[in-house]
């Protein structure tokens, strides 16, 4: 089966055009839902860059979302920056945080990194609560009121496209293949001259930027943040479930996973909010044991689809 660019590119263009026009025809709820899907695509796609490609599991990716949210919110609320610039700053802050964590932890093998990321979230939450003067502590932080939903819709959409395009560019490059060798056999990769540490670090920094920007945009969109709202474990769990379901290490897996899970969540599971984590936990266990490549990974193998699917 071959998907030629002559078919794929026009199809993509049509979808993108529809998404661009959507805010003019869609309902308020619809626009908000699409905005959420964009956010999840950006988050899941970013997690995929580090964990899907290198196999280094980040259990604390929400930390970058939260760091971006606080950076953006503080810059808007206290320093009076305009929100798009503050969003970029949120991405940069997240990347700096990734550098700080990645430098000591990525020199070592997988478990050290996974556990360090597991703890990071709690630590940031504690720090945010502690530095009340800057962050408002447990009382949260309010941003000046502004109705920018439509603008944020477009920026978040661009972010989702950018993360996906970056994933495509990485996966089709030798840099991306090298990231995969870390997942496949890190020792062999090192012995073949691949500087695995710097490759991992680069992937990790790239994977932090998207969540940082998304966090800052979400803070602006909601107008109010507090430690519990931007550092919940649930956001990390959702990213992981989306990528595992769609297919880790693929270009479109996170997109498919984000859209599918968001829709299922809204339609079916919204009625059972108390067992969400149980369902997600069960999905993770089931996917790991029964379908480790996810939906697209499975199709890729079965129908010999190219890596770019």
């Amino acid at each position: 089966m071959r998907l030629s660019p002559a078919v794929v590119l026009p199809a993509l263009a049509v979808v993108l055009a529809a998404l661009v026009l959507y805010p003019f025809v869609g309902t308020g709820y619809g626009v908000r839902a699409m905005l959420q899907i964009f956010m999840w695509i950006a988050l899941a796609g970013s997690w995929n860059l580090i964990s899907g490609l290198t196999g280094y599991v980040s259990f604390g990716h929400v930390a970058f979302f939260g760091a971006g949210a606080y950076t953006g919110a503080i810059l808007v609320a206290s320093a009076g920056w305009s929100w798009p610039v503050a969003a970029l700053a949120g991405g940069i802050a997240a990347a700096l945080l990734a550098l700080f964590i990645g430098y000591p932890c990525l020199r070592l093998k997988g478990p050290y990194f996974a556990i360090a990321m597991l703890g990071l979230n709690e630590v940031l939450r504690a720090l945010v609560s502690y530095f009340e003067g800057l962050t408002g502590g447990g009382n949260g932080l309010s941003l000046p009121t502004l109705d920018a939903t439509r603008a944020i819709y477009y920026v978040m959409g661009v972010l989702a496209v950018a993360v996906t395009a970056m994933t495509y560019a990485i996966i089709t490059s030798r840099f991306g293949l090298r990231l995969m060798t870390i997942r496949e056999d890190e020792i062999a990769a090192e012995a073949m001259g691949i500087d695995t540490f710097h490759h991992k670090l680069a992937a990790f920094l790239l994977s932090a930027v998207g969540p940082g920007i998304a966090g800052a945009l979400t803070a602006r969109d909601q107008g109010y943040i507090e430690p519990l709202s931007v550092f919940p474990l649930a956001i990390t769990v959702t990213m992981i479930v989306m990528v595992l379901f769609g297919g880790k290490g693929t270009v479109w897996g996170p997109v498919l996973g984000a859209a599918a899970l968001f829709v299922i969540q809204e339609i079916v599971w919204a009625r059972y909010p108390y067992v969400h984590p149980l369902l997600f936990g069960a999905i993770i266990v089931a996917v790991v044991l029964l379908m480790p490549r996810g939906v697209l990974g499975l199709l890729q193998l079965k129908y010999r689809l190219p890596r770019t699917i």
Partner: protein
Amino acid sequence: MAVLAVDGVKKRFGGVTAVNGVSIALEAGRIYGLIGPNGSGKTTLFNCITGLERIDAGRVRFKDERIDGLKPSQVARRGIGRTFQMIRVFPELTALENLLVVTRGPRPQAERRGRELLQFVKLAGLADEYAGNLSYGQQKLVEFVRVLMTDPTLILLDEPAAGVNRTLLNDLLAAVARLRDEGRTILLVEHDMKVVMGLCETVFVLDHGDKIAEGPPGIIQADERVIEAYFGR
């Protein structure tokens, strides 16, 4: 002048001394063999040279530069390539991708070179197959040509003949001889004595981490300590 000089290298694991002060020197454009009973420290010595194990004492010099203490990737980038006893291809990368990942510079050239090398080991038709789907022998060949992609000065081969059929083996040995003729140095660990005797100009023998003999294969074969190490008293 020696390309590689291993000087009094020691490596201990807990109470066990795996390599006990071994010294060997390799000159450019020659093929060397490294033999010894199982557990005599051959693979550990490979790991010490390539930086996968940190050595406890001694020195490793490559092209007159100390390489002990460097990361494996730094050692590899200086021109030492290796294969593994247990094959280590990247299973979810295609055969061609396995070769591409180790290259730098323009990609089209790298792809052309990769396809040439696959052609050379008669795997051109399987270039786009996942390496994990290839047979044992085919994976071994992919691993072998992957080393060549980096254009190494020194090549360490860990049991290249094991599990490879006769016809393929002859091609492989011819390829190794050709690499030598290009001026590269090869050090191979091998249990198949026919291969060692037919190919190597100098053989080092390890036993329990000690180097017990060194010399041309003919002489080594007759060395009493070597016979003792292999067959016991």
